[in-house]
């Protein structure tokens, strides 16, 4: 069963389509990385799924049920734009309100459980307005995690976090999918971070889904290359261009695309009088893959 299935979803603001006949499939148990430029329709799609916006047309199904079904919506946790907490109330009070909202009986136990997951078990009595950005994001995750959600919708949850905050957030997301079997839809501009956790990707542009794939598919589609440095970069570039099809000088390295036979490259260069100072096998990452797709589509990365 798919956690999210969207068909022909549309939403316009003042005659401009923010989401334009979008199709989307998020398998159950996936961490779905939702990628796109600013204004591409990611947040609008997430708000439509959560029922915050009224669609112009199309169909949204969550776990095979219509998204307006109260039974399925009560199992959705969301962090969209901000944590949605009352600033003057403590973290505990905010979580307690959400427990009541979800009809959770053993609220204190549940609050301790989610605070432990987000590594904030000692911060329950801090007022929300006194929290740092990273803490606020984690409180937002904790709010979304209350009541055993089947689906988490997280809009840019790692933006603005420091390195340690990102690591903690990464661990939390992996934990909740592995331990609790939750499906996660996560949008982010930090593609390097997303690449570390996502099992599936969807790329949206101008409100339309231009590509959906699993991490394995992306891996198999991603170009491999060998990057190297020599003392005479220009000479080596000319020489390698004669032998290999796709050779480029990028980021201070010579890159030979779709070739990973390092020994043959090294011996070829030595035979032609070049000394190789550095060489490594590589694969283009999500970010470069995304840039490539966007440039094919005529767009650009943010």
């Amino acid at each position: 069963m798919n956690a999210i299935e969207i068909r022909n979803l549309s939403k316009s603001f003042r005659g401009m389509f923010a989401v334009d006949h979008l199709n989307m499939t998020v398998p159950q148990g996936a961490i779905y990385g939702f990628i796109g430029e600013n204004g591409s329709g990611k947040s609008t799609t997430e708000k439509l799924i959560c029922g915050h916006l009224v669609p112009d047309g199309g169909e949204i199904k969550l776990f095979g049920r219509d998204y307006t079904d109260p039974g399925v919506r009560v199992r959705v946790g969301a962090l969209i734009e901000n944590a949605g907490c009352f600033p003057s109330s403590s973290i505990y009070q905010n979580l307690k309100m959400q427990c009541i909202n979800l009809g959770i009986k053993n609220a204190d136990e549940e609050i301790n459980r989610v605070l432990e997951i987000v590594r904030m078990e000692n911060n329950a009595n801090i007022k929300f307005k006194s929290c740092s950005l990273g803490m606020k994001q984690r409180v937002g995750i904790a709010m979304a995690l209350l009541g055993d959600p089947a689906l988490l919708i997280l809009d840019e949850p790692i933006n603005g976090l420091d390195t340690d905050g990102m690591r903690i957030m990464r661990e939390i997301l992996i934990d909740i999918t592995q331990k609790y079997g939750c499906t996660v839809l996560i949008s982010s501009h930090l593609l390097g971070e997303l690449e570390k956790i996502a099992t599936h990707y969807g790329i949206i542009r101008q409100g339309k889904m231009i590509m959906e794939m699993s991490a394995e598919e992306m891996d198999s589609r991603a170009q491999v290359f060998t990057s190297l440095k020599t003392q005479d970069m220009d000479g080596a570039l000319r020489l390698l261009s004669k032998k290999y099809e796709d050779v480029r000088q990028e980021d201070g390295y010579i890159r030979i695309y779709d070739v990973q036979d390092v020994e043959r490259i090294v011996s070829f260069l030595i035979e032609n009088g070049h000394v190789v100072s550095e060489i490594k096998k590589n694969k283009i990452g999500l970010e470069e893959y995304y840039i490539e797709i966007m440039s094919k589509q005529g767009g650009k990365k943010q």
Partner: protein
Amino acid sequence: MTKELNFKSPSFFERIKSMLGVDFYRLFHTPLFYIFLVISAIIPAMVSCLTMMPDQSGNTMEPLYSNVWQIIAASEPLYVVRSIADYANMNMVFIFGGIMVSIFIGHDYKSGYVKQLFTTHAKKQDYMISKSLTCAFAMACMCLTYLIGGIAGGAFAGYAWDINVGSLIIAILGKIIMSLGWASLYTFLNIIFRRYFGVSVGASFFFGTGILIIGVAAIVESLSLPASFLNVFLYGSSVNACLTSNIGTLIVCIWVSFAWAFIYNVAGTYILNKSDVY
């Protein structure tokens, strides 16, 4: 890893219970409610203490009220007021209440908490019903603190205490019952103007003062309809709950309050269903 998922749809009462739980928790855990309870008590006490007001010539002084209970309700249904004494009674709670409802609902939107509510509550009517009931409760409590403040102020000013107890109780009960209609109106107004906090407060204040009844009263008069026709409106029925009330007044209050609460809840739910909520 995928797990077996069971989706049990909560019943209407379970949904309302959970949302009411949140709203009441918020009401009792934030200062807003208590501040308005105090305001509702202080205002009648202060008004009562204005025992002397200059007359039209400005020379002689005459008491604002002659009886303690006039601070709670007018002596007769005065739809169009002629003096501050006619106006300053428990109906003022509906003005303070409007401002309180605007702040209460405004905080939902300002904090973004409304997103949590609408994510987990697919049925928008839950929000309307819960807010109307919670705010009606808050306004009913404000009526009670107004009563306490009014009695204290009246006692301090030395007004007379004689009254028809039955009519007094009906007047107080009538006004408390009218809280539901007023709270529903304010919830509805705050749904319409949810993106404009200042407009919400202004609209609530405007409706709460009952200014519109003057225009309606003129129409009713020109059509030669009885003045009691004005009782079909929230302000009319609130005024009608006066110190000469009888059981019929209470029945009218119940009908009018519940009817308007139903109308505003249906209209508010329709707006929430048809428009973007956040």
